[in-house]
């Protein structure tokens, strides 16, 4: 099947029901998306599919044939960080860091549809991305910081 990941086209020979996360990590060597729970409960595997945040551990590869997939590797670059990545560094969000690629992908997609979120909006959008270190106050601060950056404030 044909996959476009971070702007690059790939032909992969996998079963249609293989989870996208497996394709990314095991077939393409793109290891930014993490395996957490495997049942869409934790958000560590979050990627963008056609711009929308989705749990790659639960998306069958056959469902995204022809779609455009973006992982944390394709969101920004060290030279040109995405606003959410920059905010993450400024707020020093990460503790162990395992969840942060999923958190950042979820936040970036969220801010693309809701550029001026309230605290409640942020909580609703981000609560399904779990952080076992408990960095939630810093996550919320970083999302607000990123929203301001994207607004040019």
């Amino acid at each position, binding site marked *: 099947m044909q996959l476009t990941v971070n702007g690059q086209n790939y032909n992969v020979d996998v079963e249609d*029901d293989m989870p996208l996360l497996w394709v990314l990590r095991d077939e393409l060597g793109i290891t930014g998306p993490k395996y957490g729970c*495997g*049942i*869409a*409960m934790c958000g560590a595997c*979050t990627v963008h599919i056609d711009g*929308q*945040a*989705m*749990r790659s551990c*639960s*998306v*069958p590869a056959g*469902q995204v044939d022809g779609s455009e997939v973006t992982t944390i590797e394709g969101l920004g670059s060290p030279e040109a960080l995405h606003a959410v990545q920059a905010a993450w560094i400024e707020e020093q969000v990460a503790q162990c860091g395992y969840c942060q690629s999923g958190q950042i992908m*979820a936040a970036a997609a*969220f801010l693309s*549809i*809701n550029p001026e979120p309230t605290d409640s*909006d942020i*909580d*609703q*959008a981000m*609560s*399904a991305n*779990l952080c076992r270190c408990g960095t939630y106050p810093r996550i919320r601060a970083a999302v607000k910081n990123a929203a301001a950056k994207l607004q040019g404030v």
Partner: protein
Amino acid sequence: MMLTRFLILIAFTLSATSAIAQEDAPIDPQEGLATWAKIFEIVSHPRCANCHVPEDNRPRWSGAHYGLEEGEWRYHGMNVNGGEDRFGTMTLACNACHQQENSDVPHGPPGAHVWMLAPVEMVWWQKSSGEICEQIKDPERNGGRNLEEVAEHIDHDHLVHWGWDPGPGREPAPYSRKEAVEFFRSWAAAGAPCPDVAEATQDYLEDQALPETAE
């Protein structure tokens, strides 16, 4: 000429009488109510009611699958909220996790071609049998459908069908899709009686009953 007019008049009269007789065909409200009770078993089951929720837009988790006793419930985990559009578009879309098919992993996310909360006017969560019965008949609150169109909706909608095919470990809604459609059409044919209506009918019949004959 007069005879022809007379025969035409007779024909019209018979036709009209027949139509009225059909409209006034005796219905058995008790039979209709018994059928409605089966429909209520279905629509009040967790597979249906958990996503027919009120204005808070928060899907519920109830039922044995979640390790809960009968009558116990909790909100969908992780503060999930379907929002006013009921797809979660403005925060976290339902289909971020719920894909087009059921996950085959234990406790994995269930899925269907479209995954969303039911429109808010179709709230079933913790509503009584009578309340749901009146709602499901009301085009203002059932998606603008007549009763046959509701039956067709049950017969053809993929997300409705999911209730009987909810994936591993989840108890399906009672009966089957085919039976549900049959129940609905049978209930409609019986005049679509609702529990409150039946109580009124019963009171009326009791008022009309002849006094018992003395021994």
